[in-house]
């Protein structure tokens, strides 16, 4: 893959990369760091990608790993991630705050399969590959995530 081709494909994925990183880190500055590192690693390792059609899942996998590395480093620095979430700017009014809150309250292991499947449109096989879990586990977590989201949204409706 040439330099230009790589850059074009990454730029096409920009929104996707942001949402994946945001779903793990919930912080724009951290997202930017993780994405930068992932795109750089992807650049250096792109020759190791055997199937061109898997590019997006491959880069998403690198990004998820980078996000987790970042989380681990933050834990080592004793910064509890959830307490440190400071949005870089006020959230847009167009956002569905209830949905956002429901997703934030959901454990990451459920949130990520749900987003990768229903928002980013990855097949379950790819969801498993990106998250480093087997197909059966991805499927089971997806199922549990749907139930959890339904409950959380219902609880939110009742509060309103």
């Amino acid at each position: 893959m040439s330099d230009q081709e790589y850059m074009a494909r990454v730029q096409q994925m920009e929104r996707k990369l942001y949402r994946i990183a945001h779903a793990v880190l919930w912080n724009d500055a951290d997202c930017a760091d993780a994405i930068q590192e992932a795109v750089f690693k992807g650049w250096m390792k792109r020759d190791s990608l055997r199937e061109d059609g898997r590019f997006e899942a491959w880069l998403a996998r690198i990004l998820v790993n980078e996000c987790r590395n970042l989380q681990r480093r933050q834990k080592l620095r004793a910064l509890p991630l959830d307490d440190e979430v400071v949005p870089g700017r006020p959230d847009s009014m167009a956002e569905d705050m209830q949905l956002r809150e429901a997703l934030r309250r959901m454990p990451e292991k459920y949130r990520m399969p749900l987003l990768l499947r229903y928002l980013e449109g990855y097949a379950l096989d790819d969801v498993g590959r990106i998250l480093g879990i087997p197909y059966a586990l991805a499927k089971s977590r997806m199922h549990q995530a749907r139930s959890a989201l339904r409950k959380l949204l219902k609880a939110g409706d009742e509060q309103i």
Partner: protein
Amino acid sequence: MKRIDLDRAFPETPDCVRASIQLAFQKGARQQMKMRSKTMSLLAVAAALALLAGVAALAAGRLGAPRPDNVTLGQPVFKATPTAEPTVASTTGPTVYCAKEGKYYHLYEDCSGMQNASATTLSEAQAQGKQPCPVCMGEQNEAAIDGELSNLAAEPESYDVFLKVFGHPLSTFFPGFEFERSYIAQTRPDGFVDVVDWYVSDGKQEQPACTVCYLDYDGVRKASQFIFDFKHLFDHRSDVDFNQINNAGVSEKFIQLAPEPLHTALAACRKRLPTAPDYLSICLDEDYNVRLGHAICWGSEDQNGVTPQKASVEWLQTPDGEIRILKSDYGPDGFDLEEDTEEILHAPIGKDSIAEEDDLSF
């Protein structure tokens, strides 16, 4: 029915993300240039060295320097056996030793008391399909020199066992890891247990490790435990006849590939002790099929001693595939598994356990 648009939960992509992508491209391009120039420098140095060597050889020839009959440039010290047709591959490379019928090639001709070993080249030994000796071809050599290994050093079987475990379908995450064919043997002060460590490395600092324990209670040394990451060790010897079952404590990656009932069992434990750290372990039978699963949450009692210390479930898969709950444990009154047991027993193993739904609408 309400259709959920998950994108609405996310803000618009901020500029800092776009900038970071551009920075990554620039960083990548710079790094690429650096690597190219480094390669060019190395090539230039290699070319200069080759030129120097050529000039030196020429000068030696002109001065009439004597050359030993049996040594020519690029040849090893030993002579090839007269019956073998000498080839480039068989006459270059480091010298190793192997027995005619042996499976391994060795660094020393008397490794582990070996007799009748003959010298050959590394490439020749590899061409014959021989493997590096797990005893003398790595760090284990240092351990042997230190006198730690004694007769356990001659236990090549342990490496086969190790590979068999990592070759198990459940360990498909490990092929990317390189096995460091080395081990450290220890003998406990009571003299009963020999521990052989095989390390695997993913090239980073955090190295998962596998320990194969050889128990010697009855004088017969038998691989009985595989411990991954050291911390996940459970001993089921009191519950199951372990004569034919090997116990495996497993790493997180290994667990992720375990059969579904194990995860369901863990969920049952988490339901009771949600904040306690949890562990999973599996046992393999002699054919390395998963036979026993153990899910456990370790908690600590509260001030009134009300919260039990652990919740655990153990299940056994019979050779014909039946899942049988062996034991459940939760506090003084036990663990009412009536509901969960049904869930565990009916959780199918395999891909199609849960129907997939195509869109997210409730």
